[in-house]
């Protein structure tokens, strides 16, 4: 996929100097050196002939955006307005540029995109195995996964959906894939493994999925990424109180950090989740720090998947 996404000169330099299997992200900034996250560490990518750092141009950025959108920016403008773009293979592209606002203050589009961050997902089979024993023991428990950016939350969530889908007791899962990151639905096809029993709603808000999805699809479990605000938290509480289990993620490094956020504090105080799993990238993405119960007592500490 990267071969199609990147300009030929950049792809050549990256693929000849780095093993693509361990590339986590690529950062292209206009008139700045191309940076790569390889195995968790950042490097500048050098030109193989001149040994100079590769300097990215606006044309390189435009090339990536057009390739990622299959020359159809109109079809992804809603995503771009939210600051990201997803493409085949679950690759996520974060964008930074000048926002054009409507009269009501909403972003109409982003022009002059000057930076992009290409994040490449890595499917890790059974990475959620340890957590699964705490979540799926005696029925599916609601769980909150806390981790800082880049600690493997989405990978973990995807594997969890896949593992639950393979359980002997059929669990109807509804995946709320607001940012197309979990299942990576593209052109109507799901490109990443999310199990046999998952229904995927892509691009819709959590509010929609938690209200209409429950009514129409009657799930046993809803999986969603990144709780962002109190509206999300309220929708989750409502779903849990109506008997549907929820597994969600949030950006936070620890329980203490989570309690400093009003939305997460509301969820923790109301004991909405029976399990809280804290991940980090201390020993690589997906390092288990601890698993807590609803009363925030540790039930599992440390280890890796």
């Amino acid at each position, binding site marked *: 996929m990267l071969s199609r996404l990147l300009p030929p000169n950049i792809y050549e330099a990256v693929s000849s100097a780095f093993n693509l299997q361990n590339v986590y992200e690529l950062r292209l900034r206009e008139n700045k050196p191309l940076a790569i996250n390889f195995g968790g560490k950042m490097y500048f990518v050098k030109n193989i002939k001149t040994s100079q750092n590769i300097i990215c141009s606006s044309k390189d950025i435009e090339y990536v955006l057009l390739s990622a959108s*299959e020359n*159809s920016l109109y079809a992804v403008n809603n995503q771009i307005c939210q600051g990201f773009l997803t493409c085949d293979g679950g690759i996520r592209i974060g964008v930074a540029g000048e926002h054009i606002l409507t009269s009501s203050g909403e972003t109409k589009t982003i022009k002059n995109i000057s930076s992009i961050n290409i994040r490449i997902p890595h499917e890790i089979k059974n990475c959620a195995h340890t957590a699964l024993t705490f979540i799926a023991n005696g029925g599916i428990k609601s769980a909150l996964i806390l981790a800082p950016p880049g600690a493997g939350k989405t990978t973990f969530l995807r594997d969890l959906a896949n593992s639950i889908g393979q359980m002997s007791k059929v669990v109807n899962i509804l995946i709320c894939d607001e940012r197309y990151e979990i299942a990576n639905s593209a052109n109507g096809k799901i490109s990443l493994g999310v199990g046999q029993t998952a229904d995927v709603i892509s691009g819709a808000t959590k509010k929609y999925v938690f209200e209409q999805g429950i009514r129409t699809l009657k799930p046993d479990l809803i999986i969603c990424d990144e709780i962002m605000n109190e509206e999300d938290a309220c929708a989750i509480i409502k779903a849990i109180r109506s008997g549907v289990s929820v597994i969600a993620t949030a950006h936070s490094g620890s329980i203490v950090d989570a309690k400093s956020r009003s939305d997460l504090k509301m969820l923790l105080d109301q004991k909405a989740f029976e399990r809280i799993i804290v991940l980090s990238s201390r020993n690589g993405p997906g390092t288990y720090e601890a698993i807590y119960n609803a009363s925030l007592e540790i039930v599992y500490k440390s280890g890796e998947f």
Partner: protein
Amino acid sequence: MVVLCGAIVFLCGYIGYLFSSRLKDHAEYFKEMVNLCSKLSLNLSFLQNKLPVVLETSITNHKGDYAKTISSFCEKLNTGVNCGVFLPEYITDNERKTIETFLHGLGKNDAETEQQNVCNYKAVFQNCFEQANTKYAKNGRSIIKISGCVGLAIAILIF
């Protein structure tokens, strides 16, 4: 001698038919471009499918020059290779520039701006179609008749 004269009349008539066909193809080419704009516009206002999907769908069951143009443009999009887009010989320089600008501008804007662009180009292509169609209606049959008459005249002279 009779066979030779018959062959000359047929040949001249056929040459006339070819010229006439070029005029007809010219008009039909722009008719297809107008149809493409309608399809793009419809796609933008509802499904918002990706551009290659819309373009490839638009040439299903088409074999003419229009299909060759779109097919070559799709290939360019898919491979990323900066090769030229096929344009038939009867397209004038101005029309060539218009078509190339239209195709290369596709997919580079948000839906609203894209819709406006497509509508503008639809009007341009409609105008090109009307001009080409008028030319065909005016000259198409005359060319065949004249060439047939020329063939007949040559045959009479030889005979």
